[in-house]
Protein backbone atom coordinates (compact mmCIF):
# COMPACT_ATOMS: atom_id res chain seq x y z
CA UNK A 1 0.00 0.00 0.00
CA UNK A 2 2.84 2.35 0.98
CA UNK A 3 4.66 1.56 -2.25
CA UNK A 4 1.50 2.18 -4.26
CA UNK A 5 1.08 5.61 -2.67
CA UNK A 6 4.69 6.48 -3.48
CA UNK A 7 4.27 5.30 -7.06
CA UNK A 8 1.08 7.35 -7.48
CA UNK A 9 2.78 10.43 -6.03
CA UNK A 10 5.77 9.95 -8.33
CA UNK A 11 3.49 9.44 -11.33
CA UNK A 12 1.58 12.61 -10.42
CA UNK A 13 4.79 14.64 -10.13
CA UNK A 14 6.10 13.25 -13.41
CA UNK A 15 2.78 14.04 -15.07
CA UNK A 16 2.92 17.64 -13.82
CA UNK A 17 6.53 17.98 -14.94
CA UNK A 18 5.64 16.62 -18.39
CA UNK A 19 2.66 19.00 -18.66
CA UNK A 20 4.90 21.92 -17.68
CA UNK A 21 7.55 20.95 -20.24
CA UNK A 22 4.91 20.68 -22.95
CA UNK A 23 3.34 24.07 -22.11
CA UNK A 24 4.00 27.19 -24.21
CA UNK A 25 6.19 30.02 -22.85
CA UNK A 26 3.20 32.09 -21.84
CA UNK A 27 1.72 29.29 -19.71
CA UNK A 28 5.13 28.60 -18.17
CA UNK A 29 5.39 32.26 -17.15
CA UNK A 30 1.89 32.09 -15.66
CA UNK A 31 2.73 28.95 -13.67
CA UNK A 32 6.00 30.52 -12.48
CA UNK A 33 4.12 33.69 -11.42
CA UNK A 34 1.48 31.76 -9.49
CA UNK A 35 4.12 29.45 -8.01
CA UNK A 36 5.94 32.43 -6.49
CA UNK A 37 2.74 33.67 -4.83
CA UNK A 38 1.49 30.34 -3.45
CA UNK A 39 3.71 30.30 -0.31
CA UNK A 40 2.08 33.57 0.81
CA UNK A 41 -1.52 32.41 0.45
CA UNK A 42 -1.93 31.07 4.01
CA UNK A 43 -0.74 34.44 5.37
CA UNK A 44 -2.89 36.42 2.94
CA UNK A 45 -5.98 34.47 3.90
CA UNK A 46 -5.73 35.65 7.50
CA UNK A 47 -4.83 39.32 7.00
Amino acid at each position, binding site marked *: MKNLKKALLLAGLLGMAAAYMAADD*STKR*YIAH*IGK*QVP*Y*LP*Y*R*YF*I
Partner: protein
Amino acid sequence: MADYDAIVIGAGLGGLTTASLLSKNGFKTLVLEQSDIIGGCCSTYESQGYRFDVGASIVEILHPMERFFELMGKRREDYIELLPCDPIYSFITEDGRRFSYPTDVDETTKVIESIAPEDVEGWKKFASLGFEMIDRMMDAMMLSPMKTVPEAMRMVIKNPEAMRFLPLLMRTHQAVTRKYYRNPVIQSSVAFQSYFAGAPPEIGSGIFGFIALTEHLGIYYPRGGMISIPEGLARAGEEHGLEVRTGRKVEKILLDGRKARGVLLEDGSEITSDIVVSNVNAKVAYLKMVGPENLPRWAVKAISSYRHSMPCPMIYVGLDTKPDLEAHHTVVTGSIEAMNKVWNDYYTKDLIPSTAMSLICWPTEADPSLAPEGHHILNFLCNAPAPYAPLGDNWDRIKGWYREEAIKSLERVVLPGIRDHITYMEVSTPLDFERRLLSPQGSIYGLFSDMTSLALFRPHARSRVVDGLYLTGSSTHLGGGVPTTIASGIITSGYILKDRG
Protein backbone atom coordinates in the same frame (compact mmCIF):
# COMPACT_ATOMS: atom_id res chain seq x y z
CA MET B 1 -15.57 59.82 25.25
CA ALA B 2 -14.26 59.65 21.69
CA ASP B 3 -14.44 62.67 19.38
CA TYR B 4 -16.22 60.70 16.63
CA ASP B 5 -18.02 57.38 16.26
CA ALA B 6 -15.97 56.68 13.12
CA ILE B 7 -13.01 58.26 11.34
CA VAL B 8 -12.37 57.50 7.68
CA ILE B 9 -8.86 58.08 6.33
CA GLY B 10 -9.09 59.09 2.66
CA ALA B 11 -11.94 60.54 0.62
CA GLY B 12 -11.82 58.03 -2.23
CA LEU B 13 -15.00 56.35 -3.42
CA GLY B 14 -14.71 53.49 -0.89
CA GLY B 15 -14.12 55.89 1.98
CA LEU B 16 -16.96 58.24 1.08
CA THR B 17 -19.38 55.36 0.50
CA THR B 18 -18.55 53.86 3.91
CA ALA B 19 -18.68 57.24 5.65
CA SER B 20 -21.99 58.32 4.12
CA LEU B 21 -23.68 55.02 4.95
CA LEU B 22 -22.42 55.24 8.54
CA SER B 23 -23.73 58.81 8.82
CA LYS B 24 -27.09 57.70 7.50
CA ASN B 25 -27.14 55.09 10.27
CA GLY B 26 -26.51 57.64 12.99
CA PHE B 27 -22.72 57.43 13.33
CA LYS B 28 -20.95 60.75 13.95
CA THR B 29 -18.43 60.33 11.13
CA LEU B 30 -15.39 62.31 9.98
CA VAL B 31 -13.51 61.88 6.70
CA LEU B 32 -9.90 63.11 6.60
CA GLU B 33 -8.45 63.70 3.13
CA GLN B 34 -4.80 64.69 2.69
CA SER B 35 -5.38 66.31 -0.71
CA ASP B 36 -7.27 69.54 -1.37
CA ILE B 37 -9.79 67.67 -3.50
CA ILE B 38 -11.82 64.56 -2.81
CA GLY B 39 -12.16 61.44 -4.93
CA GLY B 40 -8.61 60.06 -5.08
CA CYS B 41 -8.17 58.53 -8.53
CA CYS B 42 -11.79 59.41 -9.37
CA SER B 43 -11.35 63.16 -9.29
CA THR B 44 -11.06 66.23 -11.49
CA TYR B 45 -8.77 69.26 -11.34
CA GLU B 46 -9.07 72.63 -13.05
CA SER B 47 -6.33 74.50 -14.87
CA GLN B 48 -6.47 77.36 -17.40
CA GLY B 49 -10.18 76.89 -17.97
CA TYR B 50 -9.94 73.14 -18.57
CA ARG B 51 -11.20 70.44 -16.22
CA PHE B 52 -9.14 67.24 -16.35
CA ASP B 53 -9.93 63.90 -14.75
CA VAL B 54 -7.05 62.67 -12.60
CA GLY B 55 -7.40 58.97 -13.42
CA ALA B 56 -10.76 57.24 -13.74
CA SER B 57 -12.45 58.21 -17.00
CA ILE B 58 -15.79 56.42 -17.17
CA VAL B 59 -18.34 54.56 -15.10
CA GLU B 60 -19.97 51.26 -15.98
CA ILE B 61 -21.86 48.66 -13.93
CA LEU B 62 -24.09 51.19 -12.21
CA HIS B 63 -25.58 48.75 -9.74
CA PRO B 64 -23.28 49.46 -6.74
CA MET B 65 -23.85 53.21 -7.17
CA GLU B 66 -27.63 52.76 -7.44
CA ARG B 67 -27.53 50.43 -4.42
CA PHE B 68 -25.65 53.08 -2.42
CA PHE B 69 -28.32 55.71 -3.08
CA GLU B 70 -31.04 53.17 -2.36
CA LEU B 71 -29.44 52.46 1.05
CA MET B 72 -29.20 56.21 1.64
CA GLY B 73 -32.91 56.53 0.84
CA LYS B 74 -32.16 58.88 -2.04
CA ARG B 75 -32.30 58.98 -5.83
CA ARG B 76 -28.99 58.86 -7.72
CA GLU B 77 -30.35 61.26 -10.36
CA ASP B 78 -30.64 63.98 -7.71
CA TYR B 79 -26.92 63.80 -6.97
CA ILE B 80 -25.06 62.59 -10.06
CA GLU B 81 -26.09 63.18 -13.66
CA LEU B 82 -24.75 60.45 -15.91
CA LEU B 83 -24.35 61.04 -19.65
CA PRO B 84 -24.45 57.88 -21.78
CA CYS B 85 -21.48 57.34 -24.11
CA ASP B 86 -21.85 55.43 -27.35
CA PRO B 87 -19.85 53.83 -28.97
CA ILE B 88 -18.01 52.19 -26.10
CA TYR B 89 -14.60 52.16 -27.75
CA SER B 90 -12.97 53.07 -30.98
CA PHE B 91 -9.98 50.87 -31.85
CA ILE B 92 -6.90 51.61 -33.89
CA THR B 93 -5.02 48.43 -34.72
CA GLU B 94 -1.31 47.94 -35.48
CA ASP B 95 -2.01 48.17 -39.21
CA GLY B 96 -4.02 51.39 -38.81
CA ARG B 97 -7.47 49.85 -39.15
CA ARG B 98 -10.21 51.66 -37.23
CA PHE B 99 -13.46 50.26 -35.90
CA SER B 100 -15.83 50.89 -32.99
CA TYR B 101 -17.94 48.77 -30.67
CA PRO B 102 -21.38 50.27 -30.03
CA THR B 103 -23.28 49.47 -26.83
CA ASP B 104 -26.04 47.76 -28.81
CA VAL B 105 -25.30 44.02 -28.91
CA ASP B 106 -26.80 43.42 -32.36
CA GLU B 107 -24.85 46.33 -33.83
CA THR B 108 -21.68 44.90 -32.24
CA THR B 109 -22.43 41.57 -33.90
CA LYS B 110 -22.44 43.39 -37.26
CA VAL B 111 -19.07 45.01 -36.48
CA ILE B 112 -17.53 41.65 -35.57
CA GLU B 113 -19.05 40.06 -38.69
CA SER B 114 -17.45 42.74 -40.88
CA ILE B 115 -14.00 42.05 -39.39
CA ALA B 116 -14.08 38.34 -38.56
CA PRO B 117 -17.20 36.38 -39.64
CA GLU B 118 -15.65 33.28 -38.05
CA ASP B 119 -15.92 34.90 -34.61
CA VAL B 120 -19.63 35.78 -34.67
CA GLU B 121 -20.57 32.45 -33.12
CA GLY B 122 -17.92 32.88 -30.40
CA TRP B 123 -19.17 36.40 -29.65
CA LYS B 124 -22.73 35.11 -29.27
CA LYS B 125 -21.62 32.36 -26.88
CA PHE B 126 -19.44 34.85 -24.97
CA ALA B 127 -22.35 37.28 -24.71
CA SER B 128 -24.82 34.57 -23.73
CA LEU B 129 -22.64 33.26 -20.87
CA GLY B 130 -21.56 36.74 -19.85
CA PHE B 131 -25.02 38.27 -19.66
CA GLU B 132 -26.25 35.23 -17.73
CA MET B 133 -23.39 35.71 -15.29
CA ILE B 134 -24.10 39.44 -14.98
CA ASP B 135 -27.80 38.80 -14.51
CA ARG B 136 -27.44 36.08 -11.88
CA MET B 137 -24.15 36.86 -10.20
CA MET B 138 -23.34 40.56 -10.35
CA ASP B 139 -25.02 41.39 -7.04
CA ALA B 140 -23.60 38.37 -5.28
CA MET B 141 -20.07 38.87 -6.58
CA MET B 142 -19.87 42.62 -6.08
CA LEU B 143 -21.83 43.20 -2.91
CA SER B 144 -21.13 40.05 -0.87
CA PRO B 145 -18.14 39.83 1.46
CA MET B 146 -15.97 36.97 0.28
CA LYS B 147 -12.91 37.10 2.46
CA THR B 148 -13.36 33.96 4.50
CA VAL B 149 -14.24 30.40 3.53
CA PRO B 150 -17.58 30.60 5.43
CA GLU B 151 -18.42 33.87 3.64
CA ALA B 152 -17.53 32.40 0.25
CA MET B 153 -19.55 29.26 1.04
CA ARG B 154 -22.56 31.33 2.09
CA MET B 155 -22.36 33.19 -1.24
CA VAL B 156 -22.22 29.91 -3.17
CA ILE B 157 -25.06 28.32 -1.16
CA LYS B 158 -27.24 31.38 -1.80
CA ASN B 159 -26.19 31.40 -5.46
CA PRO B 160 -25.47 27.80 -6.51
CA GLU B 161 -25.02 28.87 -10.12
CA ALA B 162 -21.77 30.54 -8.98
CA MET B 163 -20.11 27.13 -9.34
CA ARG B 164 -20.49 27.48 -13.09
CA PHE B 165 -18.65 30.79 -13.19
CA LEU B 166 -15.99 30.37 -10.49
CA PRO B 167 -13.66 28.42 -12.82
CA LEU B 168 -13.29 31.69 -14.76
CA LEU B 169 -11.39 33.04 -11.75
CA MET B 170 -8.85 30.26 -12.18
CA ARG B 171 -8.31 30.79 -15.91
CA THR B 172 -6.30 33.57 -17.45
CA HIS B 173 -7.76 36.48 -19.36
CA GLN B 174 -6.10 35.34 -22.58
CA ALA B 175 -7.36 31.77 -22.14
CA VAL B 176 -10.94 33.02 -21.86
CA THR B 177 -10.46 35.37 -24.80
CA ARG B 178 -8.96 32.65 -27.02
CA LYS B 179 -11.70 30.22 -26.08
CA TYR B 180 -14.29 32.44 -27.75
CA TYR B 181 -12.38 34.28 -30.48
CA ARG B 182 -9.94 33.19 -33.18
CA ASN B 183 -9.26 36.43 -35.05
CA PRO B 184 -6.25 38.30 -33.54
CA VAL B 185 -7.89 41.71 -34.01
CA ILE B 186 -11.03 40.68 -32.14
CA GLN B 187 -8.93 38.91 -29.51
CA SER B 188 -6.88 42.03 -28.82
CA SER B 189 -10.02 44.20 -28.69
CA VAL B 190 -11.15 42.11 -25.70
CA ALA B 191 -7.82 41.14 -24.13
CA PHE B 192 -6.53 44.69 -23.62
CA GLN B 193 -9.01 45.10 -20.75
CA SER B 194 -6.81 42.81 -18.70
CA TYR B 195 -4.69 45.91 -18.11
CA PHE B 196 -7.75 47.64 -16.63
CA ALA B 197 -7.31 45.18 -13.77
CA GLY B 198 -3.56 45.90 -13.81
CA ALA B 199 -2.14 42.70 -15.30
CA PRO B 200 -1.21 41.40 -18.77
CA PRO B 201 -3.61 38.95 -20.49
CA GLU B 202 -1.40 35.95 -19.65
CA ILE B 203 -1.66 36.64 -15.89
CA GLY B 204 -4.92 38.55 -15.40
CA SER B 205 -7.91 36.58 -14.14
CA GLY B 206 -10.36 35.30 -16.74
CA ILE B 207 -13.27 36.76 -14.79
CA PHE B 208 -12.15 40.20 -15.98
CA GLY B 209 -12.63 39.01 -19.55
CA PHE B 210 -16.27 39.83 -19.05
CA ILE B 211 -15.64 43.49 -18.26
CA ALA B 212 -15.90 43.98 -22.02
CA LEU B 213 -19.44 42.66 -21.87
CA THR B 214 -20.64 44.72 -18.92
CA GLU B 215 -19.94 47.79 -21.03
CA HIS B 216 -22.72 46.75 -23.38
CA LEU B 217 -25.13 47.51 -20.52
CA GLY B 218 -24.01 51.11 -20.96
CA ILE B 219 -21.04 53.30 -20.11
CA TYR B 220 -21.52 56.76 -18.65
CA TYR B 221 -19.66 59.97 -18.02
CA PRO B 222 -20.75 62.14 -15.07
CA ARG B 223 -21.61 65.71 -16.02
CA GLY B 224 -18.95 68.06 -14.62
CA GLY B 225 -16.19 65.46 -14.64
CA MET B 226 -15.44 62.31 -12.66
CA ILE B 227 -15.30 64.33 -9.42
CA SER B 228 -19.08 64.61 -9.64
CA ILE B 229 -19.27 61.01 -8.39
CA PRO B 230 -17.39 61.51 -5.08
CA GLU B 231 -19.09 64.89 -4.68
CA GLY B 232 -22.48 63.19 -5.04
CA LEU B 233 -21.55 60.47 -2.52
CA ALA B 234 -20.25 63.07 -0.05
CA ARG B 235 -23.27 65.37 -0.43
CA ALA B 236 -25.61 62.48 0.30
CA GLY B 237 -23.65 61.81 3.50
CA GLU B 238 -23.36 65.46 4.50
CA GLU B 239 -27.14 65.67 4.56
CA HIS B 240 -26.91 63.18 7.44
CA GLY B 241 -24.19 65.07 9.28
CA LEU B 242 -21.07 63.64 7.61
CA GLU B 243 -18.03 65.89 8.01
CA VAL B 244 -15.36 65.91 5.28
CA ARG B 245 -12.11 67.77 5.92
CA THR B 246 -9.59 68.18 3.10
CA GLY B 247 -5.90 69.07 3.43
CA ARG B 248 -5.65 66.94 6.60
CA LYS B 249 -3.03 64.23 6.38
CA VAL B 250 -3.11 61.29 8.79
CA GLU B 251 0.32 60.10 9.92
CA LYS B 252 -0.55 57.30 12.33
CA ILE B 253 -3.43 55.17 13.47
CA LEU B 254 -3.42 55.40 17.27
CA LEU B 255 -3.67 52.15 19.17
CA ASP B 256 -4.50 51.02 22.64
CA GLY B 257 -2.83 47.62 22.60
CA ARG B 258 -4.30 45.93 19.52
CA LYS B 259 -7.31 48.23 19.42
CA ALA B 260 -7.73 51.37 17.29
CA ARG B 261 -8.43 54.51 19.30
CA GLY B 262 -8.05 57.29 16.73
CA VAL B 263 -5.59 59.00 14.42
CA LEU B 264 -2.57 61.27 14.66
CA LEU B 265 -2.45 64.03 12.05
CA GLU B 266 0.60 65.51 10.36
CA ASP B 267 0.21 68.70 12.41
CA GLY B 268 0.54 66.67 15.62
CA SER B 269 -3.12 66.82 16.64
CA GLU B 270 -5.05 63.71 17.66
CA ILE B 271 -8.65 62.82 16.88
CA THR B 272 -10.15 59.89 18.73
CA SER B 273 -12.61 57.23 17.62
CA ASP B 274 -13.10 53.54 18.35
CA ILE B 275 -13.66 52.90 14.65
CA VAL B 276 -11.01 53.82 12.08
CA VAL B 277 -11.63 53.06 8.41
CA SER B 278 -8.67 53.14 6.04
CA ASN B 279 -9.31 54.13 2.45
CA VAL B 280 -5.59 54.30 1.72
CA ASN B 281 -3.49 51.53 0.20
CA ALA B 282 -3.55 48.56 2.62
CA LYS B 283 0.26 48.35 2.70
CA VAL B 284 0.43 52.00 3.78
CA ALA B 285 -2.31 51.48 6.37
CA TYR B 286 -0.64 48.48 8.01
CA LEU B 287 3.06 49.12 7.51
CA LYS B 288 3.17 52.91 7.96
CA MET B 289 0.07 54.03 9.84
CA VAL B 290 -0.26 51.06 12.21
CA GLY B 291 3.43 50.18 12.03
CA PRO B 292 5.08 46.74 11.81
CA GLU B 293 6.06 46.99 15.47
CA ASN B 294 2.38 46.78 16.37
CA LEU B 295 1.61 43.77 14.18
CA PRO B 296 2.26 40.05 14.60
CA ARG B 297 5.11 38.78 12.43
CA TRP B 298 2.82 36.70 10.25
CA ALA B 299 0.72 39.80 9.51
CA VAL B 300 3.79 41.78 8.46
CA LYS B 301 4.77 38.88 6.19
CA ALA B 302 1.24 38.75 4.73
CA ILE B 303 0.87 42.44 3.96
CA SER B 304 4.47 42.77 2.72
CA SER B 305 3.89 39.94 0.25
CA TYR B 306 1.45 41.94 -1.86
CA ARG B 307 2.79 43.66 -4.93
CA HIS B 308 1.54 47.09 -5.90
CA SER B 309 -0.57 47.37 -9.01
CA MET B 310 1.04 48.97 -12.03
CA PRO B 311 1.60 52.72 -12.32
CA CYS B 312 0.56 54.66 -15.41
CA PRO B 313 1.70 58.09 -16.53
CA MET B 314 -1.25 60.26 -17.60
CA ILE B 315 -1.05 63.15 -20.04
CA TYR B 316 -3.62 65.93 -19.86
CA VAL B 317 -4.02 67.85 -23.11
CA GLY B 318 -6.03 70.98 -23.94
CA LEU B 319 -6.79 71.60 -27.65
CA ASP B 320 -8.14 74.56 -29.58
CA THR B 321 -9.75 72.24 -32.12
CA LYS B 322 -12.02 69.21 -32.23
CA PRO B 323 -9.96 65.99 -32.35
CA ASP B 324 -10.58 63.50 -35.12
CA LEU B 325 -11.90 60.79 -32.82
CA GLU B 326 -15.03 58.67 -32.88
CA ALA B 327 -15.64 57.71 -29.25
CA HIS B 328 -15.16 58.70 -25.63
CA HIS B 329 -12.35 56.13 -25.51
CA THR B 330 -9.95 55.29 -28.32
CA VAL B 331 -7.65 52.32 -27.82
CA VAL B 332 -4.44 51.86 -29.79
CA THR B 333 -3.39 48.28 -29.30
CA GLY B 334 -1.45 45.36 -30.72
CA SER B 335 -1.83 41.61 -30.43
CA ILE B 336 -2.13 39.61 -27.20
CA GLU B 337 1.50 38.55 -27.68
CA ALA B 338 2.54 42.22 -27.92
CA MET B 339 0.61 43.05 -24.74
CA ASN B 340 2.39 40.25 -22.87
CA LYS B 341 5.74 41.27 -24.35
CA VAL B 342 5.40 44.82 -23.04
CA TRP B 343 4.93 43.38 -19.55
CA ASN B 344 7.67 40.75 -19.70
CA ASP B 345 10.34 42.54 -21.74
CA TYR B 346 9.80 46.11 -20.58
CA TYR B 347 7.64 46.72 -17.51
CA THR B 348 9.16 44.01 -15.29
CA LYS B 349 12.64 45.11 -16.38
CA ASP B 350 11.97 48.78 -15.54
CA LEU B 351 12.03 49.84 -19.18
CA ILE B 352 9.64 52.16 -20.99
CA PRO B 353 8.36 50.59 -24.23
CA SER B 354 8.61 52.63 -27.41
CA THR B 355 5.25 51.32 -28.62
CA ALA B 356 2.55 49.73 -26.50
CA MET B 357 -1.09 50.12 -25.67
CA SER B 358 -2.40 53.66 -25.54
CA LEU B 359 -5.77 54.90 -24.37
CA ILE B 360 -7.11 58.27 -25.41
CA CYS B 361 -10.06 59.61 -23.47
CA TRP B 362 -12.09 62.48 -24.95
CA PRO B 363 -14.35 63.76 -22.12
CA THR B 364 -15.54 66.89 -23.97
CA GLU B 365 -17.30 64.61 -26.43
CA ALA B 366 -19.78 63.83 -23.62
CA ASP B 367 -19.54 67.10 -21.68
CA PRO B 368 -18.36 70.16 -23.66
CA SER B 369 -18.54 72.31 -20.50
CA LEU B 370 -15.19 70.86 -19.38
CA ALA B 371 -13.31 73.19 -21.76
CA PRO B 372 -13.74 76.77 -23.03
CA GLU B 373 -16.06 77.08 -26.04
CA GLY B 374 -14.54 75.50 -29.16
CA HIS B 375 -11.83 73.79 -27.14
CA HIS B 376 -11.49 70.14 -26.18
CA ILE B 377 -9.55 68.04 -23.70
CA LEU B 378 -7.87 64.66 -23.99
CA ASN B 379 -6.67 62.45 -21.15
CA PHE B 380 -3.95 60.35 -22.73
CA LEU B 381 -2.41 57.20 -21.39
CA CYS B 382 0.61 56.66 -23.62
CA ASN B 383 2.43 53.35 -24.09
CA ALA B 384 1.15 51.72 -20.92
CA PRO B 385 2.16 50.28 -18.57
CA ALA B 386 5.34 52.13 -17.63
CA PRO B 387 7.58 51.30 -14.66
CA TYR B 388 7.75 53.28 -11.44
CA ALA B 389 11.52 53.58 -11.59
CA PRO B 390 12.78 53.59 -15.19
CA LEU B 391 16.18 51.96 -15.33
CA GLY B 392 18.97 54.36 -14.43
CA ASP B 393 16.71 57.38 -14.28
CA ASN B 394 13.69 58.83 -12.56
CA TRP B 395 10.47 60.36 -13.81
CA ASP B 396 11.26 63.91 -12.71
CA ARG B 397 14.23 63.98 -15.10
CA ILE B 398 12.61 62.21 -18.06
CA LYS B 399 9.28 64.01 -17.89
CA GLY B 400 10.18 66.37 -20.74
CA TRP B 401 11.33 63.48 -22.95
CA TYR B 402 8.17 61.54 -22.19
CA ARG B 403 6.00 64.56 -23.00
CA GLU B 404 7.66 64.84 -26.42
CA GLU B 405 7.25 61.10 -27.04
CA ALA B 406 3.56 61.41 -26.19
CA ILE B 407 3.06 64.23 -28.69
CA LYS B 408 4.88 62.24 -31.40
CA SER B 409 2.69 59.25 -30.58
CA LEU B 410 -0.49 61.31 -30.89
CA GLU B 411 0.72 62.79 -34.18
CA ARG B 412 1.87 59.47 -35.63
CA VAL B 413 -1.06 57.29 -34.77
CA VAL B 414 -4.06 59.44 -34.12
CA LEU B 415 -4.05 63.13 -34.92
CA PRO B 416 -1.53 64.47 -37.45
CA GLY B 417 -0.61 68.10 -36.78
CA ILE B 418 -1.99 68.07 -33.24
CA ARG B 419 1.14 69.82 -31.93
CA ASP B 420 -0.03 73.12 -33.41
CA HIS B 421 -3.35 72.89 -31.55
CA ILE B 422 -2.09 72.09 -28.07
CA THR B 423 -2.92 74.93 -25.69
CA TYR B 424 -2.26 73.06 -22.45
CA MET B 425 -0.30 69.95 -21.58
CA GLU B 426 0.71 68.37 -18.32
CA VAL B 427 2.27 64.98 -17.64
CA SER B 428 1.44 63.24 -14.39
CA THR B 429 4.13 60.62 -13.87
CA PRO B 430 4.02 57.70 -11.40
CA LEU B 431 6.04 59.90 -9.04
CA ASP B 432 3.43 62.65 -9.34
CA PHE B 433 0.67 60.13 -8.62
CA GLU B 434 2.57 58.97 -5.57
CA ARG B 435 2.89 62.54 -4.29
CA ARG B 436 -0.62 63.64 -5.17
CA LEU B 437 -2.56 60.55 -4.08
CA LEU B 438 -0.08 59.01 -1.62
CA SER B 439 -0.36 55.95 -3.80
CA PRO B 440 2.82 53.90 -3.26
CA GLN B 441 4.89 53.58 -6.43
CA GLY B 442 2.14 55.43 -8.27
CA SER B 443 -0.01 52.28 -8.29
CA ILE B 444 -3.38 53.08 -9.78
CA TYR B 445 -5.36 50.01 -8.68
CA GLY B 446 -4.10 49.56 -5.13
CA LEU B 447 -2.69 46.07 -4.84
CA PHE B 448 -1.88 43.83 -7.78
CA SER B 449 -4.86 41.71 -8.84
CA ASP B 450 -4.55 38.09 -9.85
CA MET B 451 -6.10 34.89 -8.52
CA THR B 452 -3.64 34.86 -5.61
CA SER B 453 -4.64 38.32 -4.40
CA LEU B 454 -8.39 38.45 -4.95
CA ALA B 455 -11.39 37.52 -2.80
CA LEU B 456 -10.15 35.16 -0.03
CA PHE B 457 -6.59 36.37 -0.49
CA ARG B 458 -7.11 40.14 -0.54
CA PRO B 459 -6.88 42.13 2.73
CA HIS B 460 -10.04 41.79 4.80
CA ALA B 461 -12.36 44.77 5.09
CA ARG B 462 -12.56 44.02 8.83
CA SER B 463 -9.01 43.84 10.16
CA ARG B 464 -8.18 40.62 11.94
CA VAL B 465 -5.14 42.08 13.68
CA VAL B 466 -6.35 45.49 14.90
CA ASP B 467 -9.75 45.68 16.59
CA GLY B 468 -11.81 48.58 15.33
CA LEU B 469 -9.78 48.97 12.12
CA TYR B 470 -11.63 48.49 8.84
CA LEU B 471 -10.38 48.76 5.27
CA THR B 472 -12.10 49.84 2.09
CA GLY B 473 -11.19 50.82 -1.47
CA SER B 474 -9.08 49.19 -4.14
CA SER B 475 -6.89 47.23 -1.68
CA THR B 476 -9.91 45.19 -0.62
CA HIS B 477 -12.38 42.95 -2.44
CA LEU B 478 -12.92 43.49 -5.54
CA GLY B 479 -10.00 45.71 -6.42
CA GLY B 480 -9.72 49.00 -8.33
CA GLY B 481 -12.43 50.72 -10.36
CA VAL B 482 -15.43 52.97 -9.81
CA PRO B 483 -18.15 50.33 -9.25
CA THR B 484 -15.84 48.00 -7.33
CA THR B 485 -14.65 50.60 -4.83
CA ILE B 486 -18.21 51.83 -4.22
CA ALA B 487 -19.15 48.17 -3.67
CA SER B 488 -16.25 47.80 -1.22
CA GLY B 489 -17.61 50.77 0.76
CA ILE B 490 -21.02 49.10 0.97
CA ILE B 491 -19.39 45.88 2.21
CA THR B 492 -17.21 47.69 4.77
CA SER B 493 -20.09 49.73 6.18
CA GLY B 494 -22.05 46.48 6.41
CA TYR B 495 -19.35 44.96 8.63
CA ILE B 496 -19.29 48.02 10.90
CA LEU B 497 -23.06 48.15 11.22
CA LYS B 498 -23.10 44.45 12.04
CA ASP B 499 -20.33 44.86 14.64
CA ARG B 500 -21.44 48.14 16.22
CA GLY B 501 -24.81 49.06 14.79
